[in-house]
């Protein structure tokens, strides 16, 4: 556990270990049903020490007890640009999410651009978001890397400050990635394939050199090596695609190159539910309140409900906004999906445990279980209701917000 306390005063005030008492506790385990009148204990290492009904889990003396109507695991934003796309929206100052100098740049690292002190990180943290999957935005064929980080980390002083330093590589298929070249969808896919074929050849050379001391390994190449990591499934390729034909292109690429695919955005995924399900890939759905323009003109607020019904794993994202609001809030998006047919527990799961599963972090975050990180969000009502306030936020067993926002 790497604790960098953003607020020294808060840290000092919260030295006691925290116990959370909730009228309704969504542990996000098993059948996802909440436990009534429950207690969570956080240990000194920032992990969950015990979870259960108040009748079974006694609060030891000396613990600081926080009470809430509802508590959930810390909210996870499965795809954001927060920390790169800053509050001021000022190019060259706080807009680090997209470099358009080349169409394919998998070597751009999120860790080299992340500003954990941007006010929007605090904005999300105060609302209960404890972990973000953030990095390069959609907008070019391959815009760069993403990382997973807790929202209490102000600076990336070492890779250990992240949960995953390179969690995915961001790709976009669709009109947003078109410019002078690639200027058409066909050209875009041709360029991606050509680059991945280069990476295939490189992978063979690297593997051959490993087995045969006579053969020389190729010189390091951060761009191609990042693509080799996709081919070896070390890093998933997160493809933002909205039109059904672009989603189909993503599926074809995966078929050809055999990488781990995370489908992102996917506004028209409802047209290809069978194909997506058969491919066994997860979807990080566009914000429910995203705008119905361009490739998203046929988006539906029922997409999450349809994916749920089809049994396709999915999570919510705040996404990337070029203007206002500069960041969305992932559980607000989940709430709106719940208004359009998604069951409440499934909506919460899609910004907690199911997001953690898609990110490969379900052993650490996303549910309230003994031994997992003590990340919690406390509310004075249904977390999906707009009128509900986030009263407290806990990361790694430390109180990081009590702003009742």
């Amino acid at each position, binding site marked *: 556990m790497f604790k960098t306390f953003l607020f020294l005063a808060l840290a000092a005030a919260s030295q006691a270990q925290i116990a959370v008492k909730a009228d309704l506790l969504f542990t996000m385990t098993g059948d996802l049903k909440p436990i009534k009148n429950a207690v969570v204990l956080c240990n000194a290492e920032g992990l969950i020490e015990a979870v259960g009904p108040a009748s079974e889990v006694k609060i030891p003396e000396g613990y600081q007890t926080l009470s809430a109507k509802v508590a959930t695991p810390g909210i996870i934003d499965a795809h954001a640009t927060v920390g790169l796309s*800053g*509050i*001021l*929206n*000022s190019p060259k100052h706080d807009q680090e999410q997209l470099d358009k100098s080349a169409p394919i740049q998998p070597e751009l690292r999120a860790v080299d651009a992340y500003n954990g002190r941007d*006010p*929007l990180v605090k*904005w*999300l943290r105060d609302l209960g978001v404890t972990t973000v999957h953030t990095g390069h935005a959609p907008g070019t064929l391959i815009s760069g890397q993403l990382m997973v980080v807790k929202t209490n980390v102000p600076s990336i002083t070492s890779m250990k400050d992240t949960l995953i330093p390179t969690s995915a590589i961001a790709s976009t298929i669709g009109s947003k990635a078109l410019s002078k070249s690639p200027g058409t969808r066909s050209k875009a896919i041709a360029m991606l394939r050509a680059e991945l074929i280069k990476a295939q050849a490189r992978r063979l050379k690297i593997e051959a050199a490993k087995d045969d001391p006579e053969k020389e390994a190729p010189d390091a190449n951060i761009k191609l090596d990042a693509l080799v990591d996709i081919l070896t499934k070390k890093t998933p390729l997160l493809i933002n695609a909205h039109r059904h034909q672009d989603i189909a292109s993503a599926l074809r690429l995966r078929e050809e190159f055999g990488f781990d695919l995370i489908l992102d955005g996917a506004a*028209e995924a*409802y*047209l290809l539910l069978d194909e997506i399900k058969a491919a066994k890939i997860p979807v990080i759905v566009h914000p429910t*309140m995203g*705008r*119905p*323009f361009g490739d998203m*003109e*046929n*988006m*539906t*607020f*029922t997409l999450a409900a349809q994916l749920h019904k089809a049994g396709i794993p999915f999570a919510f994202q705040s996404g990337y*906004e070029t*203007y*206002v*609001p*500069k*960041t*969305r*809030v992932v559980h*607000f998006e989940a*709430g*709106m999906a*719940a*208004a*359009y047919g998604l069951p409440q527990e499934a909506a919460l799961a899609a910004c907690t445990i199911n997001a953690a599963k898609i990110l490969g972090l379900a052993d650490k975050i996303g549910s309230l279980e003994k031994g997992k990180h003590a990340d919690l969000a406390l509310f004075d009502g249904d977390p*999906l*209701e*707009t*009128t*509900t*306030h986030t009263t407290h936020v806990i990361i790694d067993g430390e109180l990081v917000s009590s702003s009742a926002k």
Partner: protein
Amino acid sequence: MRPRKLLALAIAPLIALPVIFSSAQDTPEADPPVAIRAFTNATIYPVSSPRIEGGTLVVQGDTILAVGPAGQVEIPDGAERIDASGKTIIPGLICTHSHIGQVAGGDSSSPIQPEVRVLDSVDVRDTSIDKARAGGVTTVNLMSGSGHLLSGQTIYLKLRKGNTIDDLSIKLPDGSLAYGVKMANGTNSIRDNGPFPGTRGKSAALVRQKFIDAQAYLKKRNEVDPEKPFERDLALETLADILEGKRTVHHHTHRHDDILTVLRLKEEFGFKVILHHVSEAWKVADEIAAAKVPCSIIFLDSPGGKLEARDFEWRNGAELEKRGVLTAFHTDDPINDSRWFLRNAAVGVRAGMSREKALEALTLAGAKMLDLEESIGSLDAGKQADFVVLSGDPFSIYTRVLETHIEGQQVFDLDDPTDRLFAEGGYGAGHNREASGCCFYR
């Protein structure tokens, strides 16, 4: 199947005509009986009075006949009774600041273009209008953008089903159309190239000079012999109307200093002005209250996105309410989708507004800002029958708009497949309501 439905919808406004003109004719015995409908057992928020449980709303033609608790409202014989048990009825939502209908205002030729009318640009068949109806929006102030100090004349519309802008527009007693004028200050209207201003000081100077010119024009207009020809100037004429209080200025403004600049202009020229967006209202709420200027505010899910919105706060609504400032919400669609307009009331309550004022900010407050409170904005006998049927509590995220009615005509029905497509989205929702034999393979 679908074309026939559309044909029925297109005819609907024509059917309403005898009702509209009935009061103007001296032959009441020749009028067909006007249909009366009674929605019963509903939770009703008249907005002008407290919530009614188990309430009845009686609509006759395009007008509200009565609203009240079950025992206190007489339902005329022959009225169609509609059981609205479990449902909630609120007034039609009024959006004081919207850009639906593909509106456009001034071009890049000058920063002040009062002669430009958005009414000459509105596409009444655009999907954004269908979507607004699906959000329960019944009246809008359609505005051009904020890239000019003055980008043109706005247009107030009722979102009736119609073929042309005339079917949607609102006629004032003097026969003119209801509209205001869009102005802006701050960074949006500042550009690098002339004749646009490069600074805030220059912005204010350009506007002041133009209104001073309009003062002279107005003086001339008032002095001229009505028998003699008068050389009209479309731009100054519009500004003169503002100076005379005939038209309201809808002023985009974000930062505290820009807000105060608007208040100074109002003080100097004495015009009627509504502050729009007002991101930093919380910083100068006392000054806004003292100037008695209403605010049409926006809620966003985060601050920032532009320098001027860095200090935007959700508590704007509560701070203005505390000081008695007339406050409405707006969508600024496409900034916020009209289908989420109702959600603003919940954000307002979350940040400290009372439920009453939050609901008023979606309805009656907007009506007042558009000078239409005599006919719309609340559910009161004699007002136009603009109302929304909801599935539940207006402050809950789980609540859906089921029906939207304008002047007694239903303009949105969630059970209708085409209406539902626009309400929820889906394949084809990005394109206009289709003509026959067209367009998408769903």
